[in-house]
Every structure is written in C-alpha cells, then in structure tokens.
C-alpha cells in the first residue's frame, strides 16, 4: 500500500482527541484525552461554564498536573527557574495559571475551536509534567551555581572553593566565603540526588566544620542544603545544627540572604 497526503488524511481524521467523557460532581464535563503523562496516565481536561460569565467556557486541568508533579515531590512554585519554565510554557501556548490549575477560557462564539484548545492545554500539561526531567538531572554543581547566583545578587564580596587551615594539619575546603558588613561567612553546601549519599555527605560536612571549629570566633559557619528534594535526614540536619547554622535553599533564601549580609 502506498501512502500519500490524501490517504494519510483518511487515516488520521478518525482519531479521537477524547477517549472518554463523564460528568463530575461540580457539573463539569471530564474528558480523558488521548495525551498521556510520562507514567502512562491519560491527561484529563474539564469543561464547564465560567460561573460569573455564562457567555464563556473554561477548559481546565483542575490542578491535576500540579498533583502529578507533587507525587514526584516536585513543587513547581519553589524556584525562580521552575516558575520561569511554567511561565514560558503558559505564554507560548496561551494558557492561564490560577493557583495549581492551568486553563483556557473559550468564548461561547468560539466553542467550535474547542479541539484546538484541548490540544493546546494538553500540550501544556505534558510539558509541565516534564519538569521532572529538570529535577532528575539536577546535579550538585547546579545547586552550587544557583546558590552563587543568590550570593552574587547580595552584592557582597565572595570567594569560591576557599581553603581554611584545619586543626589536624590539613586545610579544609569550603564552597564559599562571603564578606558581610560585620561578619565573614563560610558556606558548605549539601546537595545530592541519592538518598544513600545524603547521609555520608552530611557526615563529611560535619567533619569539615569540626576540623575548623577553632575558627568559629572569626566566622559564621553556614550549612546550606538543597530543599528541592526531601532527601536529608532530620537527625543529620540537627547534628549539623550543633556546629553550624543550617539553612534550606531555595526554600529559605530570604533568611539566608539576611544572614549573609550581617
């Protein structure tokens, strides 16, 4: 059989965008589209009248894509980078974000364009769900770069990869030294994607602080751990808290900025 543009169209024109439809409790129509999240679940979209404007329809994912990401412990609102990705996708596909929900408003007189809106919103949901890729390939070096961006934004003088003399005859490597108004800060970062490594990495950072503990009168010791994934044990962070001040980044970046500027 040969394939040309005419018989290609006859093949694809019968393809359904919506595999299944039912009505949910709030009266909206729920459509299981033909698009799938990366784990194989079909993307649902919901169609209903805008409550305040009966002349408009709203097509929404009702927050299901955000819920998909939360299942992977990814909070799309936590970092500047993620918010930028979400904003770029929304802008490119003309999709609105409202809290955890993504939607497209369709005026009554344009409801014939619903199929195009379904494709656009499904495409957006699929691309949001790919935020998981930025999480999984996020390396400790990227974390340090993001932290450096924060340090740089404070306009304080700083150095990277600083060596501080330790009490057992060996220099101890620190990720950053930052010169605040009255206090100099030493920073050790904690970031990994491997839970088994998280514990040993925490122990190594503890050892480094211990080795330079006699320097504490002259420095502020700051441990900054990656809050993009919930990987560090509470007891490890508590132990580090006994030899340094512990900050989560980017979750508590404002507190960290204030501490650096001290």
């Amino acid at each position, binding site marked *: 059989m040969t394939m040309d543009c005419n018989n290609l169209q006859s093949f694809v024109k019968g393809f359904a965008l919506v*595999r*299944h439809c039912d009505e*949910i*409790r*709030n009266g*909206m129509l*729920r459509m*299981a589209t033909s698009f799938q*999240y*990366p*784990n*194989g*679940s*079909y*993307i*649902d979209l*919901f169609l209903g009248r805008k409550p305040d404007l009966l002349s408009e329809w709203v097509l929404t994912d*009702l*927050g*299901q894509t*955000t*819920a*998909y990401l*939360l*299942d*992977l*412990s990814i*909070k*799309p*609102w936590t970092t500047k980078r993620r918010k930028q990705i979400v904003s770029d996708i929304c802008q490119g596909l003309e999709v609105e974000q*409202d*809290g*955890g*929900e993504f939607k497209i408003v369709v005026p009554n007189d344009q409801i014939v364009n619903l199929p195009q809106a379904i494709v656009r919103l499904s495409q957006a949901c699929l691309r949001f769900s790919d935020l*998981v890729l930025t999480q*999984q390939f996020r390396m400790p070096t990227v974390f340090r770069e993001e932290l450096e961006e924060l340090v740089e934004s404070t306009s304080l003088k700083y150095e990277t990869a600083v060596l501080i003399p330790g009490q057992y005859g060996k220099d101890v490597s620190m990720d950053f030294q930052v010169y605040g108004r009255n206090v100099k800060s030493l920073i050790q970062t904690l970031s*990994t*994607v*491997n*839970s*088994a490594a*998280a514990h040993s990495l925490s122990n190594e950072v503890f050892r480094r602080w211990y080795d330079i503990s006699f320097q504490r009168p002259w420095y502020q010791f700051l441990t900054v751990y990656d809050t993009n*994934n*919930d*990987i560090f*044990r509470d007891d490890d962070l508590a132990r580090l808290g006994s030899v340094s001040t512990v900050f989560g980044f980017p979750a508590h970046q404002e507190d960290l900025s204030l501490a650096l500027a001290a």
Partner: protein
Amino acid sequence: MTRQDFEKLRDLPNKEITSDIAFEKKKETTPNLVFDQVPLDNSLGVDIVLNGTYKPAIPSVTFNFVLRGVGPICRLCVNGTFHKNIGRTHKHELVRDDDPRLNLPIAIAQPDLDGKSMKEIWATLCRQANIIHTGKFIDPEGAVA
C-alpha cells in the same frame, strides 16, 4: 529499592502513622487540598513519607508513599486519571528498580474502592498495607474520624 525490598516493606506488620492526616488548602495547589511529609514509622528504618491530594470538584483522592530521596514507591488513586486500560481507581506499585523515577508506570485496578467514603478508603488502605494509624483522619468531605 528492588521489588523484593518493596514487598518486604509492604508486608511488614505494625507500620505506624502517628500524625494526623489533614488535607489543607494552599494557594499553589488550588482548587485541590494536600498534605505531605507524614512519616511512616517502620521497624526496618526505611525513610518513607506519605503525601496526598484531595480534589473536591471531582471528587478524587490520592495517597502517595515516597521513599525520601528516591521517589514514589506506592500510590492509591481513587477516581483519578485513567491509567492505561485499567480505569480510574487503581494502585501503583514499584515493580522495577527505576519505577520511582518514572512515577510508577505499573498499576493494578482496585474497583472495590469506587464510591467509598474518604474515611472508608483510608481505613482500607491502612488495613491492606499493615499500617496502624494512631492520629486523626480529618475527613476532607467534612466528617472527622
């Protein structure tokens, strides 16, 4: 985590959740309510937390067990998205080592939970997973268990 490790944890008796389960409204997750980081105590010392999402407009609920630092290892979805050809109510489980990274692509149907109240769903989950819940389950539909 391997399938064998998962089964050992799943079948382990007397796992315990001492915290309350309370779905909360957050502006970043509206219109849905969520909870997260509820520890699952277990004698193997495996670092597991539970999170959940309740979608009142549908209604639909998800309970998701996460091995911290690795990803989800088990998830119960009731009236959620269609998964492949097994319907909207199902349980995802870790089968292959890299399933957490792929957000648990393998699931089995659990139609017995369709139409059940949130409280009944939670009680069934605890019973089937050998979990003792000593905190309160705050029913997102209104009642407090």
